[in-house]
């Protein structure tokens, strides 16, 4: 800014009425010694010390991830119960809508007809029947019985498929796992029973983990498919509940074990604990919208009359600047604290 334009801008500013919550007087008072580089260095040393001490004392958490293998090994019945819903399209992922598929009418709405979710479409397409059951089973070598079952299933009419999967869903609710295999009450499951049993064995062997991660390329870094499958079951959810990580447990703020978590997310997760968000099917969209508004308000505090006058009304500043106010009262300092007539 050149000297030529400075007075003009200054004059423009000077014409505004002084608002104590928005403006500040020039400081004409005393300055004191200040070593900014020393301050930075000391702060850095302090932070390094605390960090290293905390790391030695507490280390950091590293709970092993759930795999399809660990899940199907620990709870094969739950795995089978989830697998059948992937096959018949009733799982959470199958009926999710965008970005995984285009199930109509399931997208979350912020309010009324406004659904950003639908607007952006299906970018990570997942066909649960194919991706989670049919395709992995087809990779199995030396399994003629499975391939025969697959052919039988895929060539059947949709209504016959539904008959089989419907019966299996009912049966697997009462299933048990004995001697390394699933045991269901008698029923007309058709080829679905050997398919799900094979898939369960495949999961227990670890082959399903590999099949799902490398389904598109060798060097996979995208774990969407296996993670959604795991999340549709109850195994991971139960582990999370034991760690107080569930949404209804203020889980967003928490960490595994006794570690501190993310206390700064308290306001975000709070909404999920109160009505009507506890029961709303659009809770995610609604809470996000509320947080966006509050976040904007935080950023714009200086512009919001009433909010920006809270600091002055509360008066905590009197403690912070008490040395300054004392020296003003004593008549020593002549900065912005004193009446204009006394300004030097």
């Amino acid at each position, binding site marked *: *800014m050149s*000297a030529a334009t400075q007075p003009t801008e*200054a004059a423009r*500013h*000077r014409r505004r009425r002084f608002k104590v*919550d*928005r*403006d*500040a*007087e*020039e*400081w004409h008072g005393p*300055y*004191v010694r200040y070593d*900014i580089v020393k301050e930075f260095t000391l*702060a*850095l040393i302090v*932070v*390094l010390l605390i*960090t*290293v001490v*905390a*790391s030695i004392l507490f280390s950091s958490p590293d709970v*092993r*991830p759930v795999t399809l293998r660990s899940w199907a090994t620990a709870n094969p019945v739950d795995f089978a119960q989830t697998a059948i819903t992937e096959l018949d399209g009733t799982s959470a992922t199958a009926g999710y809508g*965008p*970005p995984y598929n285009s199930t109509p009418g399931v997208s979350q709405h912020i309010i009324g007809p406004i659904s*950003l*979710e639908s607007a*952006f479409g299906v*970018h*990570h397409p997942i066909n649960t029947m194919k991706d989670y059951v049919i395709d992995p089973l087809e990779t199995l070598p030396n399994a003629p019985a499975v391939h025969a079952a697959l052919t039988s299933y895929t060539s059947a009419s949709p209504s016959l498929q539904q008959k089989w999967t419907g019966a299996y869903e009912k049966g697997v609710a009462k299933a048990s796992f004995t001697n390394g295999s699933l045991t269901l009450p008698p029923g007309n499951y058709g080829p679905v029973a050997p398919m799900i049993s094979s898939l369960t064995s495949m999961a227990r062997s670890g082959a399903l983990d590999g099949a799902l991660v490398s389904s598109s390329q060798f060097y996979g*870094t995208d774990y*969407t498919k296996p*993670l*959604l499958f795991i*999340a549709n079951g109850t195994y*991971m959810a139960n582990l999370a509940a034991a760690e107080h990580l569930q*949404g209804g447990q203020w*889980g967003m703020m928490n960490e595994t074990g006794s570690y501190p978590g*993310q206390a700064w997310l308290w306001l975000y997760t709070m909404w999920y604990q109160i009505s009507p968000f506890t029961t709303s099917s*659009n809770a*995610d*969209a609604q809470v996000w919208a509320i947080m966006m508004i509050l976040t904007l308000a*935080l950023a*714009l*505090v*200086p*512009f919001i009359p009433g909010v*920006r006058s809270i*600091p*002055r009304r509360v008066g905590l500043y009197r403690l*912070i*600047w008490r*040395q300054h*106010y004392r*020296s003003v009262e004593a008549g020593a*300092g002549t900065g*912005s*604290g004193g009446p204009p007539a006394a300004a030097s």
Partner: protein
Amino acid sequence: MSADTAVPAAPATGAPALLPEDADQWTARVRRRAVGAFPPERLLPDRQPAYVASWIYVFGVLTLTSLVVVLLSGAVLALEGPSWWHQSSVGLFVNSTHLWSVELFFFFMVVHLWGKFFMAAWRGRRRATWVTGVVAFLVSIGTAFTGYLSQQNFDSQWIGTQAKDGINATGAGAFFNVLNFGQMLMWHILLLPLVLGLFVVVHVLLVRKRGVVPPFPAKPAVVPALATEVAPVPSAAAAADEEIGEQR
């Protein structure tokens, strides 16, 4: 001092002085504006107003130095790659320093935010300082979030499968896939730190430019009728600024 056509004195390094015909160069203009806004005494002051006399003022620099430790520990983690800390006890220790420096970073930043709020630190043309601070806070939350997603353990599995619903509800899930480890890691170590760094730099430069916010007027009844400019840092350049600004 910084008139358009004036030729500044030759710098101490002995490089040739700016010739009048070069004054309209982009380089010359950028340099003039930069040095005009941030003369060395303003960038690295050795004096500060006497009212800066409270421990609350150290939380800005504590936040900044915590961020430095976060970046350093993150850099060491990057040296060995994302699976190192699961396999090596040294790696686990470095991961711990990354976690605890992040906890310290948020701790100090929130105390700094509380302090700045109760001082109404946006006063006197410091609103941009406040806004960039809040944005830095938000970007930090995003950076931490992608960090938690990059842990490749149970925690990141859970956080990803839970967070996806909120993000999908906004439509952003089409582009920002929290279950895609590769994407989340790259956002965490490159994109978000760059954005955060940018806002932190702007925030700190604004603090240097405007100076630390002065206290509220001591006697509320006796406030100036008109708003004036912000207090400059005492220096040769600033003294000249003051002279011009004093013409009421």
